[in-house]
Every structure is written in structure tokens, then in C-alpha cells.
């Protein structure tokens, strides 16, 4: 296989006395969709924030397409611009229209002319079926629509890697589907995605690989069928069996 899009080497992160990540080694290759599962507090969100350089690691290396972006000499903003991220709470800019939200990074960061940025933005909005709401403001959209706008905002500038941090957790159950469908479309289009989620059915259906995080370490990883049918680590077994009861 070619160089991985992202390679994590021995990532450690602590908040005060609490060790959140205790040495994570892990790679993700082009066009691969990796789903992280694990209990709350197992370090999924922290790992995603760390990869996006939103938190500084205490040890280890983050290598994006061959470049060590944890090196203090690299331009952090430049590295971040190559990675897309979507948060649990959408975080759309409330004072910008939907179209501005999806075109602003291309205009300001990637210096595309306004028309070009808006053309790309409209294309993306058309793809998610809300082109007619381009000039509305985020609070006039439903939660599912807002989250889909947040996703296309993240991919508008063609990032090498897309990070999704529990993107359906703040949504009503009937809105979860439309957001996950979009993720599946992105997978079909060849995006490289690292995703933290509690949607096990989705993980099983869409993931190329499932990673189970337990107390800041990767307890187990493998193809979804293997992890869900035949978990080997006791923590994975317990986590999955609890989900089955519900």
C-alpha cells in the first residue's frame, strides 16, 4: 500500500493528572473509512481534536501525508487547512448565510475568487439538496440540515482527511439517517474518513475498519464483522454486550 494519509505514532495526551491518551499507534490509508468506537471518556474526541492540532500532544508524532505536523516548525494553520473536521454541535457561523458558511474557507484561506468559491459552495449545497436555502441563515435550518451543511463546509476545500466527531449525537433520531447517508456518499466518492460515533449499525455497515478505544489505548481493531461478531478484548466484549441489551 502507498504512504498512509495519516500515521499516528505513540500519541500521548493528558489533562492535568488525567491521562486521556496513553500511546496511540494507528494509520489510515487513502479512501479508507475508519470508525472509532468506545465508551464516553475513552479518548475518541480527544484523539480527533489532537489530530486536528486543536490540542497539543504531550508525546508522539502526527504524520499527515508524510509530513510530521506535530513538529513545532510546521505552520499549524496550513496543516489544519488540509484536514476537515465536523463537530457534534455543528458550529456553523450564525452570522453568515448557508452559502457563505460553505464558501468562506475557500475564499479567505484558499484565496479562491468569490465566484469560484460560491460556485463550489452551490454545487455542494445542490448535492445535499438544500440549494434553495443557500441564502438562509443556519438557525433557519433543521438540525440534520445544519449538520449536513457543516459536513460540506468541511469538504469544500478538498481536505486530505475528514474527521467526524460524533456528528449525530446532537440530532433527533429521525434526522440521524440523512446525515449518515451523506457520510456514506462521501465514502462512495472516495473520501478518507476517521469518525468517532455511537451508531454501531452504521459503523458495521460503512466502516472499512473499526477501532475500539479503551482508557486511552487502542484495545482492538479490525474489520467490522470481526469486531462485532467476535470481539476478543474483554473491554470490547463488555462494551458490545451492553449495547445489545438496549
Amino acid at each position, binding site marked *: 500500500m502507498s504512504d498512509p494519509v495519516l500515521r499516528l505514532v*505513540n500519541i*500521548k495526551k493528558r*489533562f492535568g493528572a488525567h491521562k486521556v491518551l496513553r500511546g496511540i499507534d494507528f494509520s489510515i490509508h487513502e479512501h479508507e473509512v475508519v470508525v472509532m468506537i468506545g465508551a464516553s471518556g475513552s479518548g475518541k474526541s480527544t484523539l480527533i481534536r489532537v489530530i486536528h*492540532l486543536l490540542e*497539543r500532544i*504531550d*508525546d508522539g*508524532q502526527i504524520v499527515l501525508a508524510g509530513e510530521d505536523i506535530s513538529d513545532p516548525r510546521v505552520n499549524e494553520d496550513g496543516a489544519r487547512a488540509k484536514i476537515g473536521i465536523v463537530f457534534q454541535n455543528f458550529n456553523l457561523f450564525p452570522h453568515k448565510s448557508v452559502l457563505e458558511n460553505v464558501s468562506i474557507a475557500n475564499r479567505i484561506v484558499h484565496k479562491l475568487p468569490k465566484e469560484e468559491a460560491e460556485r463550489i459552495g452551490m454545487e455542494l449545497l445542490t448535492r445535499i439538496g438544500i440549494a434553495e436555502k443557500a441564502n438562509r441563515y443556519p438557525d433557519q435550518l433543521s438540525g440534520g440540515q445544519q449538520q449536513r451543511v457543516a459536513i460540506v463546509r468541511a469538504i469544500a476545500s478538498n481536505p486530505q482527511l475528514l474527521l467526524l466527531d460524533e456528528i449525530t449525537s446532537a440530532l433527533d433520531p429521525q434526522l440521524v439517517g440523512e446525515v449518515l447517508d451523506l457520510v456514506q456518499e462521501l465514502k462512495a466518492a472516495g473520501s478518507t474518513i476517521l469518525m468517532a460515533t455511537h451508531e454501531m449499525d452504521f459503523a458495521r455497515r460503512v466502516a472499512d475498519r473499526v477501532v475500539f478505544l479503551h482508557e486511552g489505548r487502542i484495545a482492538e481493531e479490525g474489520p467490522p464483522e470481526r469486531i462485532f461478531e467476535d470481539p476478543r478484548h474483554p473491554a470490547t466484549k463488555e462494551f458490545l454486550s451492553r449495547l445489545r441489551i438496549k
Partner: protein
Amino acid sequence: MNIRDFGGNGDDVSQIELKRRGFRRRQTGKSLLISCVSLLVFAAAIYVIFSHSEGWARVQAAYFSPERFVEAIPKVGKGLLLNIKILCVSVVCVGITATLLAVARTTRSAVLFPLRLLATVYTNVFRGIPMIICLYLVGFGIPALGIFGRIPAEVLGCVAVSLIYSAYVAEVIRAGIEAVHPSQRMAARALGFSHARTMRIIILPQAVRKIIPALMNDFVAMQKDVGLVSVLGGVDAVRSAQILNAVNFNYTPYVVAGVFFILMSFPFILLIDRYAKRLQNREQLQGAV
């Protein structure tokens, strides 16, 4: 800096991380050096420009005379005590009046419309009126009525300062009240709290937390505005300086008073900065951006 060793139980730090820390340390050192040098250059430039100006010797003698400076300290310092007294009383008055005004302005019921109107008119009038005019009106107008007999200048000063600052602070508190999410009010009412209790126990404490930096800012402004009570004849720091100035025809005592006012505001400014930083840390999940 969140650079800490993992330490203990065999969790050693890798060479890469150690190198990164070294690099960041050197980087910090370099920035520190650059800022120190630029500060020194800037200070030197200012000194050279001023000290080579034609009138520098005269300015120095009139404003920065060491003997006059030392001489003025006890008298101006004694005057400052009066400023502090006025400040303390005014702060309490402003706190109470401003809160009442803010609450009055945020009432919604139709019955309380006159109260709301009164509060609105008050805040708008007293925010618009210059401090010095208010001082003259209160300081010379109220005694002229002849109802209360002779009123000391410091009491009149307190009244004037409180009138003006209540209006300002009331607006800040009102902004705070309105910044508390409506769901908080609903949650309290749902538990059976009355409107007044909701305000006092649920809304105001959250509002005050949001506006503490703004309130501190008003407090510092108030600290120096109490110096204006000198126009009413109270012998405060500014007035003492004025008297000394009249005796020696030297302006250094004013500089002394200025220094005293700056020193007085210093602890509070530090406090505001620290509080603002703490608030920021808590709300930003201590991220790196």
C-alpha cells in the same frame, strides 16, 4: 504551557518530544528577547525626542521636580483618603440603585409600565449628562434649596457620582440579565419560583458572573471620576494638589495625584485581567487555538 512529563511507571518521554520541547523553549526565549529589545529601543527613542526638545528643562522643573514631588506626597495622600471614602460609599449606592434600575427595566408586566418608563428615562438622562454638570447641579443646587441645612461636600460628591454611575452600571446589569438564556427563567418558573425569586436566586447570579469584567471596568472609571468632587470644594487629592500648586506655582503635585490614582486602580486592573483569563480558560476547554 501544557508541557509536563508523563513521569513514573515507565512512561518515559520520547526523544522527539524532548527535541520539540527544546525547540519551543528556544522559540519562547527568542520572542522574549526580541520584545525586550524592541521595548528598550522604543523607550530610548522617546527619551531622546523629549530630552532634546527645546522646553524640556522648563517642563521638567514645572512638572517633575523631585523636591516638590516628595513634599506633595503627604498632603495629596491625605486628600486621597477622602477620594477612597467617597468611592467606597458610592460603590455601595451604585450597586443597589443600579440593580434596582436594571430589574425595573427588564420587567414585562403592563402594570409596572410607569416604573419601567421612569427607569428608562433616568438611565438615559444620567448617561447623557456630563459628570461635571451633574456635580455642579447637585453640589450647588441641592444646598441652595435650603431643606437639609449645610451638607458636606463629600456627601454631595457621593450623590452626584452615584447618580451618574447608577445609570451606567444599570445598563451593564441589564445586558447581563438579558444574556442569561430564557430557558433558565422557564426552568425556575417551572419549579414554582415567583418572578422576583427567579430574578434574585437564578437570573441575577448568572448575570453578574457574565458582566464582572464590564463592572470592574466601570469601577476603575469611577475610581478616577471621584477626583472630580474637588470642584465642590472637598479637600481631596486633586484639591490638595491644586492648593500646593497655588502656593509654589509648580505642577508637580498634580503629577503626584495622578500617580496616586494610577496606583489605586492597579490592584483592580490586575484582578480584572486574572478573572478574565480564568473565565477564558474555563470556556475554551483549554484548546491550543
